[in-house]
């Protein structure tokens, strides 16, 4: 039973075959459910916007303000507006995925293969997000500064060039693996604890997992914003 549980837990996927391509179905299923819930929540909150915010609108405005502060402090006053939706989407997507994966008892839904869980516990999702961040900061740097963007690679001295080039590879790598590792590890720890001691003991670890999930979302969004800010920053 233990091997069965472990095998189910790690590295099993619900494959969808569309023509020649294969997809991890469970990742899309959970992400659609969670994003659907997020969109419903947001549509409800923004349905009737008033000057004196009430209820959900209040919460959404708080969220908006939080994301704006995050984007503004990392990217800077000049271009943060252009990137706020992207940073905010990253934050919301990662946060909703992490918390949705931790809070909803997916295990109750049986799949023929693999199991439902946080979409961010799949390496494909996190690499996709990290590559989007990489593309974004290149685009931000090039569109804001043109070819002068590459001055960044020899700033403050040309000795930095190999390190800066290396950074372009380590940034997405660390972004994706940090998120993937944290969320997967959290799911595994909770899973193993629930399997070994089904009562009470996993609860503190679950709370720790919620905390980690929120922190990971914040870290991902903050780092993405920081990389974009670094790319658009003017050197004098």
């Amino acid at each position, binding site marked *: 039973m*233990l*091997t069965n549980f*472990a*095998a189910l*837990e*790690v*590295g*099993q*996927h619900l*494959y969808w075959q569309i023509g020649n*391509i*294969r*997809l*991890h179905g469970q*990742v*899309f299923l959970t*992400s659609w459910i969670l*994003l659907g819930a997020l*969109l419903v929540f*947001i*549509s409800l909150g*923004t349905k009737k*916007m*008033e*000057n004196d*915010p009430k209820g959900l*609108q209040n919460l*959404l*405005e708080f969220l*908006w*303000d939080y*994301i*704006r502060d995050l984007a503004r402090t990392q990217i800077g006053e000049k271009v943060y507006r252009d990137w*706020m*939706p*992207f940073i*905010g*989407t*990253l934050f*919301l*997507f990662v946060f909703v995925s992490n918390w949705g994966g931790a809070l909803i008892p997916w295990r109750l839904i049986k799949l023929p293969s*693999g199991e439902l869980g946080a*979409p961010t516990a*799949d*390496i*494909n*999702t996190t*690499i*996709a*997000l990290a*590559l*989007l961040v990489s593309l974004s900061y290149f685009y931000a740097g090039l569109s804001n500064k043109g070819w002068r963007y590459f001055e960044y690679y020899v700033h403050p001295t040309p000795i930095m060039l190999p390190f800066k080039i290396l950074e372009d590879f380590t940034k997405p790598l660390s972004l994706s693996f940090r998120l993937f590792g944290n969320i*997967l590890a959290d799911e*595994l720890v909770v899973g*193993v604890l629930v399997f070994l001691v089904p009562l009470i003991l996993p609860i503190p670890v679950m709370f720790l997992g919620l905390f980690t999930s929120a922190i990971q979302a914040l870290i991902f969004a903050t780092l993405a914003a920081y990389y974009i800010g670094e790319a658009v920053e003017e050197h004098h």
Partner: protein
Amino acid sequence: MLAFNFFGATEGGLFDINATLPLMAIQVVALTYILNSLFFKPVGNVVEKREKFVSNNIIEAKNKLSEVKKLEADLLTQLQSARLEAQRIVNEAENESDKLYKEALELANDEANASKEKARLEIESQTSAARDQLSKQADYLSELIVNRLILEK
């Protein structure tokens, strides 16, 4: 035991990268546009409109406050000058009344002195008149006495 199927297997594994990656990227980009039109834009409009409203009100209130302060200062100087004016008027009046009092006192003194002098003169004249009469009567009486003494002899 847990790591049994970590990297292994042609099928599955933790690091099984496939078309999920680009599709998820497309999904996130689409989500960015959806959230931008559904969440970031409308909420941003409302919040920024309110922030503008608040900052405008603050500026207006500050202007009004400075105006009030200016008016207050104006009133204060006016009050000060009014006070000085009042002080001046009071002083003037006091001086005036002092002068009047002194004049009246002098006048009364003079009058009193005059009537005293008059009375003294009158008393003097009456005294002298009385003295004359007394001396006349004394003469008469002495004559009488003298006549009688002469007759008795």
